[in-house]
């Protein structure tokens, strides 16, 4: 084959790969455009302020009441609860796997945790609905076996593999010399992990937590099944033991029956847009954190 033909072929392959890469950006933009197109007409009926501060979500009332506050707070409650459970457990698990566990245990544990990520969310929903919910309701003497905290617990299990796996990578990337110096100075292994290794890996851990958060806030099936879906504003700690309604569950439950091009229809797209912006922000911040850390350690 002569060099001319080879050059053309190289050029074609390069362009093809470039196009494949560009597709990812095109898809994100197209999704965003699609959400905007169907969400913006909602402002013919209501204002940003009424959407953000409205305390009642009754989209089928006449006129519809489209307050997103209970849904936004519902999502935040479930997500924050999930992070409170999964972050300490996940980071501790990651530290154990990479710092303490012997080689054979590490090689069993990490894949085992990652298998957790492959369990379909509807299975977690079933577990919560039929097993964990009734059991916790009995234990805590609750009226209803479906509540925000149950959603948090289920989501914690689902966010955990991501947090463990990414934190473990971050901890492992901490230079061995740091550990050796710490131990040489007379620090115990616990002191080394807690005061040296974890702080050194913190940016990777923070990124793991943010990605876990993105996973939790976007999860739909499980929360739809276990949180009860009552659009009330959760208050204080007891809020975790009462039913809430999340943004994702609202879209999933209501999209099917909404008449096309009604304020309700557009409001559901506005919720989708809000979710998109939240997860996009979480991912971008995670990205920035990782990049900045790359600069400081060098």
């Amino acid at each position, binding site marked *: 084959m002569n060099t001319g033909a080879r050059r053309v072929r190289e050029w074609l392959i390069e362009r093809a790969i470039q196009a494949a890469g560009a597709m990812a*950006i095109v898809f994100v933009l197209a999704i*965003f455009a699609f959400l*905007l197109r169907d969400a913006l007409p909602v402002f013919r009926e209501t204002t940003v302020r009424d959407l953000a501060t409205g305390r009642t*979500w009754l989209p*089928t009332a006449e006129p519809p009441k489209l307050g997103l506050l209970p849904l936004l707070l519902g999502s935040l409650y479930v997500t924050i609860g999930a992070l409170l459970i999964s972050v300490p457990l996940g980071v501790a698990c990651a530290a154990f796997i990479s710092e303490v566990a012997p080689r054979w245990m590490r090689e069993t544990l990490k894949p085992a945790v990652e298998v957790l990520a492959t369990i379909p969310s509807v299975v977690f929903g079933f577990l919560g609905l039929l097993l964990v919910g009734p059991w916790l309701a009995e234990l805590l003497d609750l009226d*209803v076996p479906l509540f925000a905290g149950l959603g948090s617990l289920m989501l914690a299990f689902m966010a955990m593999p991501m947090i463990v796996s990414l934190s473990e990578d971050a901890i492992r990337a901490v230079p061995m010399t740091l550990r050796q110096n710490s131990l040489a100075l007379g620090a115990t292994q616990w002191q080394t992990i807690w005061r040296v290794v974890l702080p050194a890996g913190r940016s990777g851990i923070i990124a793991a937590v943010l990605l876990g958060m993105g996973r939790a806030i976007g999860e739909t099936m499980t929360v739809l099944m276990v949180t009860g879906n*009552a659009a009330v504003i959760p208050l204080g700690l007891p809020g975790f033991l009462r*039913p809430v309604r999340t943004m994702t569950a609202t879209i999933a*439950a*209501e999209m099917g029956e909404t008449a096309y091009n009604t304020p309700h229809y557009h409001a559901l797209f506005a919720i989708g847009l809000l979710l998109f912006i939240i997860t996009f922000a979480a991912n971008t911040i995670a990205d920035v954190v990782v990049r900045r850390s790359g600069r400081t350690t060098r």
Partner: protein
Amino acid sequence: MVRVRVMAALLALALPLAALTGGCGRPESTSSESGDREAVAQIGSTTMLPLAGRWQKAFNRKQPEVDISVSGGGSGTGIRALIAGTAEIANSSRDIKQKEIAQAREAGVTLVEHVVAYDGIAVIVHPSNPLHEISVEQLSDIFSGRVTSWADLGATRMGDTQVISRDSASGTYEAFKELVVTMGGQDKTRDYAAAVLKQASNQAVLALVARTKSGIGYVGLGYLDESVKVLPVIPLDGGEAVAPTVENVASGDYSVSRALYCYTNGEPRGATKAYLDWIEGPEGQAIVEELGFVPVK
């Protein structure tokens, strides 16, 4: 940091793209004939899904040359599909909305209504609940959040009511709101309270009421079983409490009942007509009865 700015610029690019895609039209009405075989797509209400599935199977055995496809998605989805021309029959467990009639007219679609069955909605509580009957007014107070304690209804030591409903995607939700929450339209300002728990299916409501001591909910007649207690309902004009049975729904004595509809575009023709005639005939109606719904007539 630079990358963040690039992202922002890309998002700004997305705005005109949104305007561009806004111009896309809806799909044209599709023809139902394809060669010798005729296709009938039936889409809509999830309440009617078991019914439609059985109709499809039984009709296919009789007339295998007709391709009937059945799918759910909800009453609104079915009517949308009918207007868009992707369905021949829309199943609906609620009356059609003014907005949908207007959209149909805009698209040049004439909606024709066929009543194919009736459905009673039963009020259910936990088996340990001491109540024996309940009135429509009391139900309206409970579901709209005006009454929140079982003590107000004469049941002591039951705590607060836990109200369990279908979610707003359900035709049963709309029907129960119309018949009970607004008391048949007497007080249109009433709506479900925000604290009402929403469940995605009749089975889910049944299961949750069975597991919640202070719970109260509603399900279609066909879904009732021994795990819950059924409350007879005193109608709006007073009188005796009526139990939700097939006989009482058929006679019109049970007040919390509704019609189930099939909508078509214009008067049905060809295979669609044959299918609908069969549904309204003795064989289709026998399936209605078998599944716990109430036959027409």
